[in-house]
């Protein structure tokens, strides 16, 4: 099965969130313990299937074990949408497989390139052995 072509939603001016679906950009990302550790920065979508596949999350500064990024830079991660739960009332994204003190083990997203190894590393960190 060929890998989908991922695009940032902001780069697709002819697309918008489907009617009735929330736009989680700007929502707080919380771990399994409810502690916040980041904010949804952008959505990575597959224009062909018209689905959001990943949340591009900016990690908060000062997280344990996460190197402090350079000034005017931020540490980003990608969260597969199937690994999160959306709290539309609280405008929060819950990731039960991660916590504030363990997010440092999660692979950071440094470029808008998604090699297969990166996808595998994400799945391993989330406790899934099978590749997506």
């Amino acid at each position, binding site marked *: 099965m060929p890998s989908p072509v991922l695009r940032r*939603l902001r780069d*697709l*001016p*002819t*697309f*918008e*969130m*489907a*009617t009735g*679906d*929330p736009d*989680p950009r700007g929502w707080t990302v919380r771990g399994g313990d409810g502690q916040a550790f980041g904010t949804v920065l952008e*959505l990575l*979508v597959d*224009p062909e299937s*018209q*689905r*959001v596949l990943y949340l591009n999350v900016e990690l908060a500064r000062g997280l344990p074990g996460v190197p402090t990024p350079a000034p005017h830079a931020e540490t980003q991660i990608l969260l597969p*949408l*199937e*690994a*999160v*739960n*959306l709290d539309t009332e609280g405008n929060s*994204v819950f990731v039960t497989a991660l916590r504030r003190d363990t997010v440092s083990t999660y692979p950071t997203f440094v470029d808008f390139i998604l090699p297969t190894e990166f996808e595998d590393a994400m799945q391993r960190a989330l406790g899934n052995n099978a590749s997506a």
Partner: protein
Amino acid sequence: MAELRIQPKKPAPSPWLLVALAVLVLAVAAYFYLRPEPADEPATTPATTAAPAPTDTLAPNSPAADARATPPPGDSLETSPPLGSASPARVRLLELAPQLTQLADRADLRDDAAIREQRDNFTSATSRLADNDPAASLRPGLVAAASLLLAVQQKGYPNLEAEASTLLQQANQLSGRDATTAEQAQNSAYLAQVATLLNTLSYPAKDIL
């Protein structure tokens, strides 16, 4: 497990279409706000044209002045009004015309078909008088005034039926001439009753016992 979908954006309406719609709405609003009120038109026309009526501009003994007397059939030169002077009944009727048309154009009355018809009849009769139409007779205006008041009475003043009916009977008995002293007195008395009933009808029906 969350699921989020995206969709192609719906095409937004052209901004020019919105501008055209806004202009259209403004034009319609301006038309309704700026158009002259129907009640104003007939009220001003007789008032402006009635003004010169008391002063006669026609030369004495001119053909126009002779024709203006408009004697009804059987009328003779002896019974015609003096040349060069407007008859008092004509002047008084033209004075009452704006008030009568304003009454007929009142918001609660103007939509009535009978009132509208009588108002048109009255306007037609008095405009010919106001224009110094030599063929115009006084009688149609006098009768039309009573008919208009009767129509107004029937629309909203049931307790004034006797007065309005009597007035119309009086109007039908008038000769239309205003030459002799007796005729002038008869016309004057009739027009005084028209003015009285007109004044009464100018109040809302609920205020009249």
